[in-house]
């Protein structure tokens, strides 16, 4: 059962694997922060949210991102209504 889409003006954030464990949550909806227009902007904002966030997102080389379920880069745009996921490098197969 997919969750309902994020409300107006909000981002759906999702976390997987050790990021999920460290942050203690699998998903949350947040109001699109002022000045956040890209994945890079969002990452900087997330780091400022709390100590656990700063720790989890400090090792940026070990964090990947997807916007609306497509792999994203730091300059990928993010907008209200988007689903943005953060996770470690994938290890399936």
């Amino acid at each position, binding site marked *: 059962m*997919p969750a309902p889409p994020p409300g107006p003006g909000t981002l759906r954030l*999702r976390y*997987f*694997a*050790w990021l*999920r464990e460290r942050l203690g949550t699998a998903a949350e909806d947040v109001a699109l922060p002022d000045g956040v227009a890209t*994945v*890079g*902007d969002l*990452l*900087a904002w997330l*780091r400022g949210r709390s100590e656990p966030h700063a720790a989890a997102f400090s090792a*940026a*080389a*070990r*964090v*990947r*991102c*997807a916007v609306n*379920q*497509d*792999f*994203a*880069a*730091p300059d990928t745009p993010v907008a209200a209504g988007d689903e943005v*996921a953060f*996770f*470690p*490098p*994938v*290890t*399936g*197969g």
Partner: protein
Amino acid sequence: MATVRVQAADFDIGAEIAAVSAGRADIGGIGCFVGTVRGEAGGRAITAMTLEHYPGMTERAMARIAAAAERRWSLLGCTLVHRVGRLGPGGNIVLVVAAASHRQAALEATGFLIDWLKTRAPFWKKEFFADGGSAWVEGRAEDEDLAARWAGEEGQGAALDPQGGGGPLDPVP
């Protein structure tokens, strides 16, 4: 045309291969790869492994990987099945099947499919050790190198952004 599935249940390798080849006589070769859970990692005995994934994105990524293989090798059949949840030592993790009119295409596509599945589909493994510990499996640079072998053939225009599975998210200044 490709079959792509994510499931908790085990898969039947013979049945999956039979489904690809049933009733057709244009196939000359079928390549197959099965990934299984090894009973140890880094010298520590493993009691179980869990596979987490990103529902929705996973199926999307797998379908794209299959489509990329079908474009490159004119495949006559292509199946990707990946398990999720808790798996024990010796258990099956992933199945890749690629059929073509000649063997070289079938075998190359099989290698491509598993290389890309490992680096471009959102699955994460966590290992549970006999000594009570547990750890998320780290991505291997070697897997990135293997996956990157194929990227050159289509350049950056490939459906799957090579940055996605591979490149680190650069630190924000």
